[in-house]
């Protein structure tokens, strides 16, 4: 088989083209776009905030929880905290916790949840709000939370739990969700690598 100079050139050009196409392809595709609609919520300091406004110009990690959950939800926020502790101080990431139990998760309840766990409220936003607004946001991000098992205390108070999506979302600087992880068991090294790929 005779390999001419032309054949070598064609092969080299094809290789370069393939490589350049591969490098242009976004590593993390857009899963959902949160910049198209406004969601009015309230943070742990009772300050009204809106999504997408708080998500713009910063990479964010968002977790979905209810604070009466003693097991899965604290595991999710603990994984977010672990990501924060492992990142360098130069990386300016926003950590957003969205409650799907706004009836019980008032701003003060959310604040106490953060304080007990030493979450730095300069970089964490714990959000609640009107039920309709929360549900609209959950529908947009594909998170489901259904009131499920319940019990009564001796004083007759109802205590209910949710069957819910277990999720952390990575959101880019344009408020677009780029990847979802299983919140309670997320691999924090994978999240950190994905954050770096968006910077």
């Amino acid at each position: 088989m005779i390999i001419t100079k032309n054949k070598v050139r064609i092969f080299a050009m094809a290789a370069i083209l393939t490589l350049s196409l591969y490098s242009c392809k976004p590593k993390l595709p857009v899963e959902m776009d949160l910049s198209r609609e406004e969601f009015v919520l309230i943070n742990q300091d009772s300050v009204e905030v809106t999504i997408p406004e708080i998500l713009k110009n910063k990479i964010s990690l968002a977790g979905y929880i209810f604070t009466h959950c003693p097991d899965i939800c604290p595991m999710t926020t603990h994984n977010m905290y672990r990501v924060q502790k492992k990142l360098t101080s130069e990386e300016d990431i926003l950590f957003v916790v969205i409650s799907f139990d706004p009836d019980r998760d008032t701003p003060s309840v959310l604040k106490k949840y953060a304080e007990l766990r030493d979450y730095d409220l300069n970089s964490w936003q714990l959000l609640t709000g009107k039920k309709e607004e929360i549900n609209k946001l959950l529908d947009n991000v594909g998170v489901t939370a259904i009131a499920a098992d319940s019990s009564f205390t001796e004083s007759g108070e109802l205590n209910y739990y949710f069957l819910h999506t277990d999720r952390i979302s990575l959101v880019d600087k344009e408020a677009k969700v780029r990847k979802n992880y299983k919140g309670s068991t997320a691999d924090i090294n994978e999240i950190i690598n994905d954050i770096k790929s968006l910077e």
Partner: protein
Amino acid sequence: MFSFILFVLLFTGQQDQIKIKDAWIRPGAQDMNTAMYFTIKNNGSVTDTLYAVKSKLAQKTEVHETYSKDGMMGMRKAELVVIKPKSSFEFKPGGHHIMLIKLNKDLKSGNEGEITLFFKKTGEVKVKAKVKKPDIKKGS
């Protein structure tokens, strides 16, 4: 006398049968819920069953299990936990846990709490545990 010795032997054997280790409590705020975790080791030659739990830490204390359904996570009461002879059962994040419902006060890192476990064979076993944040190097 024989009965007394037999009673002492049986009693001592039962107490040695069940051992609790690595107990810890997740921090939680007053009126909220939190979880306690540990490992039960059954050193005996017969199966034992955890059937109840009590604590003054909360208004109600139950054994719960985390479960998965339709891709979602939930939590429900678990009535009995059977521990076979020469085996261990781990109460761990994402699995079985002691559910402390409506805490009577804040449980902060460094605090200590006690619960009582009730086993069919062994009887009452008191468990003391420190409140601590999960290890930063591990997910939980």
